[in-house]
């Protein structure tokens, strides 16, 4: 099954363009983009098993730790730099986004929206850090160290003067699907930003 944020992203990527996918996971997005849009590119990943899955499906994957930056990539070397569901795992997310905008002309970022009602509910009523299917870890062993909300990211973009080309939230639930356009920060499960410099 295709993750819903990956579906949205495909619409924002031009055919035959060059894409760098940060934290590419098992390579699903790059494989789809290659097949459907003749997009060429590379994925960066550090998880050993994910790297093997990429190799097995013929996706170009390079072992690289995003926390060490993108210094090995030249300015404007990609049309689009994508990072799905990895922002919250980075030590310095804002610097990585800055780098994405240097290396690519545009970038697309998706992350779990911590402002969603379920997370708020969990914290408000159980008094404990939210644990969900999308974020199944306990606070002490989670790779997710920098949570933010749809609105937080908006503020970061404004502060840094990044241009937002598109932004939206997606939700898997029926309730979320109905209400996400009115109250995105409350009902969006996953936030998707399409940025340029």
């Amino acid at each position, binding site marked *: 099954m295709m993750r819903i944020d990956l579906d949205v992203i495909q619409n924002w990527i031009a055919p035959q363009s060059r894409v760098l996918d940060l934290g590419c996971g098992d390579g699903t997005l790059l494989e789809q983009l290659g097949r459907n849009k003749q997009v060429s590119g590379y994925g960066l990943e550090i998880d050993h098993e994910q790297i*093997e899955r990429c190799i097995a499906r013929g996706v170009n*994957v*390079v072992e690289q730790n995003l926390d060490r930056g993108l210094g090995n990539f030249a300015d404007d070397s990609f049309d689009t730099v994508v990072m799905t569901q990895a922002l919250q795992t980075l030590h310095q997310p804002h610097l990585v986004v800055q780098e994405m905008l240097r290396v690519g002309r545009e970038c697309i970022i998706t992350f779990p929206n911590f402002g969603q009602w379920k997370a708020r509910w969990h914290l408000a009523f159980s008094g404990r850090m939210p644990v969900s299917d999308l974020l199944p870890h306990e606070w002490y062993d989670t790779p997710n160290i920098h949570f933010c909300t749809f609105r937080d990211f908006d503020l970061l973009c404004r502060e840094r003067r990044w241009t937002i080309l598109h932004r939206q939230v997606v939700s898997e639930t029926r309730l979320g699907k109905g209400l996400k356009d009115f109250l995105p920060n409350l009902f969006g499960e996953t936030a998707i930003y399409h940025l340029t410099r």
Partner: protein
Amino acid sequence: MPVFHRLTPFGPETGITLSTEKISASAEQQKTSREPGSVGIVVPREHTFREPLALACGRVLNEYTLVYETYGTLNADKSNAVLICHALSGHHHAAGYHNESDKRPGWWDNYIGPGKPIDTDHFFVVSLNNLGGCHGSTGPASTNPETGRPWGPDFPRLRVRDWVHSQARLADLLGIGQWAAVIGGSLGGMQAMRWSLEYPERLRHCVVIASAMKLSAQNIAFNETARQAITSDPDFCHGRYLEQDKLPRRGLAVARMIGHITYLSDDGLGKKFGRELRSGTFNLGAEEEVEFQVQSYLRYQGDSFSGSFDPNTYILMTRALDYFDLAREYGDDPVAAFSHARCRFMLLSFTSDWRFAPERSREIADALMHANVPVSYAEIESSMGHDAFLLPNNRYRRAFDAYMKRVAAECAEGVAP
């Protein structure tokens, strides 16, 4: 018996496998030619090429012999051939056994065979002893047809590209127009990369393991120290030791010891030997000389190597390593160099390898990405230093296997990428 009779050709059971031998001695002893993952008994073949080969140094070899082995079966459209390029002290015997009583299999038997990453159920594997070698291919220990005496130091200085050109002649001989993959570790990786630039249409995949686009000054320094050890041995006789019935064994042994230390890691040597003593004690009044395990290991490795490898070949091979500079003729721009490549690349490196450090492989990956050439790269955790590319390692095997399965699937489908 004169020395050179004993030496020519040098026994293929030695060379690069020395380093693996002690580490996995117990595993190796249990292996036989009948085990499921083995290619079994293999017979080396040789061919003498009579069409002159123009070398990078400007000289011409009028004729030369290459000795090689093949494993697996070439398919009907000849699309499943894989070339193995050997490293500094390697040779053609990469997998299987030469006879039932062989103690050790070929030097890359961990990765070549049925069900292994270079799967002989799918690939037709070609492995040769490079020109200049001492295991049956024409080299410094061979007879120079013009003089009737061993070439010795007069053998042409070879470059990596000369090997690539001679390998292309071998491909022609075997009717292989395009390799499914050219694969090599270390110096072998340099050959694989050179293939991608010299004959871009003749390979679909290039697998480069623990290699570099050029050696660092430190690397050249180690090689020079090794060469000095050989040439300063009084028995070296300016490289004409075979004619004088001598052999600079001590010098070659020291050269090999230097290599051994640097091809392993501090951690690897520590784990293997620590400060264990082989003999003697530090007790008051003890007369026996103290000897550490690592000392005796190094001496054993040096001695056994020096009886089975030609010193001039060692000098020639280390020089080829030093001279290699992938991008020299492309304005020192690796991106410009790799923009000529038409194949896909797979790169692997090992964390504790300090002679061909992961940074060197990352430089290759970066250059390939800038040139928009398909590449994958994995950095394998290992404490075994440069030698890790020869040794069993689960993650290495899985990543290598995943890549080669794709290559095999393409061969089966008859698709070129």
